[in-house]
C-alpha cells in the first residue's frame, strides 16, 4: 500500500537568532523544566505504586505546551488543555499544590474527588480541563470564545488534540464552526507520531495535518514542536490574527511521544531508532544548550534549576499523596447546581 510521506522533519527552519528578551527565554526554559521534572516526579510516584489513575508522560512535548501557552495573555485568554499539556497549566499560573490535589483526587480537590488528573476546571486561572473523550472539548472551547466575542471581549482560546484525536468527528465540526464564525480559537494538533499503539499511517492519509486548514478556509501551519521559540513565534502570529478577528488557526506541532501511551504501556511497538533519532532533538536539553551558548544561562545554573525544580515537584507530590481521600458523602452532592454552594 502506498503511503503518504510523513512530516518527520519540520518543513520550517527554526529561527536563528532570538527576538526574545533574556527574561522571556529563561522563563521558557523554566516552564519546560517544570514540565519535564513534573513527569519525572510522577514516574517516581508510579514506580512506588502510589499513583492513582493513569500516568501520561508528556516527555518530548514540553516546547509545545510551554511555547503555545506562553503566547497567550493568561489573564484574559483561556486554556483548554489535553492530557500531555502539564506545561500549559504551569504557564497559566497553576500552583503545584492545587494541581496535585486535583490530579490525585484527594480531599480538597476542586473536583471534590469526582474526577482527577488534569480534568479540573479552575475558572480563576482560566483553565478548563479535558474529558477523556478525545476532541469533545474543542466545540466547547469554540463556544467559550463565541460568548466573549458576543460581549465584545478579547479572549483567545488555546486548545490541543493529538494526531489520533484529530480523527474524532467533533474536531471537524468544531473547526468548521469556528471558521464560519471567525472565532479566536487556536487548535494545536500535537503530532507525536503515535496514538496509543497506532502509528500515524493508520490514523490519517494526508501528508500534513495542517493541510486540513485549507478545507476550513483558515490558516494552518506545520512546525517543529521541539523548538520552543518557533512554537512561541508561530502561536503569537495566530494570537494576533485571532485578536484582529481573522478567526481560528490550526498549528500542527511535530514531536515524538518519548514514552508509552501511559506508564502501563511498554511501547515495544515503537522502533528504537525512532526514539534515538528524537532523543537527539530533546526540546529541553536543546534549549538549555542554546541558552548556555547565547550566554543567557550557565551550565551550573541550568543544573541547579533542574535539581531544584525536581525537588520541588517531588515535595509537592509527596504532600498531595499523603492527603486523605475525600469524604464518601461528597459522592451524593452536586449532581445539579441546585445543591452547589454559591
Amino acid at each position, binding site marked *: 500500500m502506498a503511503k503518504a510521506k510523513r512530516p518527520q522533519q519540520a518543513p520550517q527552519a527554526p529561527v536563528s537568532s532570538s527576538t526574545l528578551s533574556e527574561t522571556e527565554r529563561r522563563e521558557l526554559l523554566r516552564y519546560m523544566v517544570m514540565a519535564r521534572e513534573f513527569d519525572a516526579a510522577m514516574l517516581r510516584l508510579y514506580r512506588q505504586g502510589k499513583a*492513582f*489513575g493513569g500516568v501520561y508522560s508528556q516527555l518530548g512535548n514540553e516546547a509545545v505546551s510551554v511555547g503555545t501557552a506562553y503566547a497567550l495573555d493568561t489573564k484574559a485568554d483561556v486554556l483548554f488543555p489535553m492530557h500531555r499539556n502539564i506545561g500549559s497549566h504551569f504557564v497559566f499560573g497553576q500552583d503545584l499544590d492545587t494541581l496535585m490535589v486535583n490530579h490525585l*483526587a*484527594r480531599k480538597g*480537590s476542586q*473536583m*471534590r*474527588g*469526582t*474526577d*482527577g*488528573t488534569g*480534568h479540573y476546571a479552575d475558572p480563576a486561572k482560566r483553565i478548563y480541563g479535558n*474529558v*477523556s*473523550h*478525545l476532541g469533545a472539548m474543542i466545540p466547547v472551547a469554540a463556544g467559550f470564545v463565541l460568548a466573549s466575542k458576543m460581549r465584545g471581549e478579547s479572549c483567545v482560546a488555546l486548545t490541543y488534540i493529538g494526531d*489520533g*484525536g484529530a*480523527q*474524532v*468527528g*467533533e474536531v471537524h465540526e468544531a473547526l468548521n464552526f469556528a471558521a464560519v464564525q471567525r472565532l479566536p480559537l487556536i487548535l494545536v494538533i500535537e503530532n507525536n507520531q503515535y*496514538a*496509543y*499503539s*497506532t502509528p500515524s499511517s*493508520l*490514523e*490519517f492519509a494526508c501528508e500534513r495535518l495542517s493541510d486540513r486548514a485549507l478545507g476550513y478556509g483558515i490558516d494552518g501551519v506545520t512546525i517543529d514542536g521541539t523548538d520552543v521559540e518557533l512554537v512561541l513565534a508561530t502561536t503569537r502570529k495566530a494570537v494576533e490574527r485571532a485578536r484582529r478577528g481573522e478567526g481560528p488557526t490550526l498549528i500542527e506541532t511535530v514531536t515524538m511521544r518519548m514514552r508509552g501511551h501511559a506508564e502501563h504501556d511498554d511501547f515495544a*511497538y515503537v522502533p528504537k531508532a525512532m526514539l534515538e533519532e528524537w532523543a537527539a532533538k530533546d526540546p529541553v536539553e536543546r534549549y538549555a544548550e542554546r541558552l548556555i551558548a547565547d550566554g543567557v544561562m550557565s551550565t551550573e545554573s541550568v543544573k541547579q534549576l533542574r535539581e531544584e525544580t525536581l525537588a520541588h515537584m517531588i515535595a509537592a507530590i509527596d504532600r498531595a499523596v499523603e492527603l486523605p*481521600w*475525600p*469524604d*464518601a*458523602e*461528597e*459522592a*451524593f452532592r452536586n*449532581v445539579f447546581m441546585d445543591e452547589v454552594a454559591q
Partner: protein
Amino acid sequence: MIMTYLEAIADGLRVAMRNDERVFMIGEDIGTYGGAFKLTKGFLEEFGPQRIMDAPISESAIIGAAIGASLNGMRPVAEMQFIDFITNGFNQLVTVAGTTAYRWSLPVPMVVRGPSGGGVGGNPFHSRNPENWFVHATGLKVVCPAFPADAKGLMMSAIRDNDPVIYFEHKGLYRKIKEDVPEGEYYVPLGKARIVRPGKHVSVIAYGSAVHMALEAAATLEAEGLDVEVIDIRSLVPFDEATVLDSVRRTGRAVVAHEAVLTGGFGGEIVARISEKAFTFLDAPVVRVAAFDSPTPFAPTLERAVLPNAGGIADAVRRTAAF
C-alpha cells in the same frame, strides 16, 4: 477448559473468526497492541490486518463502517476501547443500525462490544454502564454477560445473529471470574435468562456484575435462613420475561439489581413487567438496588459510595422478606 471471563470472550471471537470468513474485527489498538485489555492478543498474527483492523480514533466511522459492511455480506465486530466511547458512535447505532430491519427488512449482523462498568477507579469517562440507553433506542439487541461460559456462548450467538447486538463486557470481571468453558463452537441463545441459584424465599433479578453481588448476598443470607433465588437475565433485549415472572410467582418477593444508575435503568422495566403481570402473586413491593444517579466518581471513597454492592442487595432482600 478453565477460562477467565476475558479469555472466554476472546475464545468466542476466535472460534467465530475461524469458522466464518465474514467475521472481522475493527477497533482502536486491537492489532499490534492486542487491545487495551489484551483481549485480542495474538489475533493479528492469526487473522492478519484485514480482519483485525486498527482503526483511527473515529468511533462513528468504526460503527458506521461496521453497519455498511454488514449490509454488504460481512459480520463485523466493532470494539470500543472503553464502552464509554460508544457515545461518539451513538448516532450510527441509534439512527441507522437500530432502524434498518424495520425500514428496509435488511439484516445488520454486527456486534459492538467493549468494556463497561465501574469499581476500578476508571473516572467518569471509563466506568459507565450505558446499556439501557440502547434498550430505549429500539432495534438494538443488548447483551450483558456475567460468567465466562455465557460470555463465550452469547458472543458466538451475537455474531451469528442477524440484528445489531451491543455486547457489554464488565471490565471488573475480566480477570476476576473463572470457570469451565466449553471448547469450540458454543452458543447461548440471546433472550434466555438463567437461574444461577435456585431458592424459595426471594427472587433477585440481576445482570452483569450485579449477579456476582447477588450471589454473595445469597451466601450471606443463607446463614440467616433466607433462601434466595438469583436470576441472571443475561440479555436485556430480548428480555426473558417468562423466567422472571415464573420465579416471582413462586417466591412472591423480588429484588432487582444492576450496577447502572437507578433512574431510567433497566430495573424499572423489570419491576413494571412484574407489576403488570404478577401483581397478585406479590407479598411485598419490589425493591431496586442500583447505583446512585450520578456520574461514576474517581476517588475510591466516592466510587464505593455510589456503586451497589452485596451488602446493599442483602439489606434489600431482608427488607423484602420481612415486609
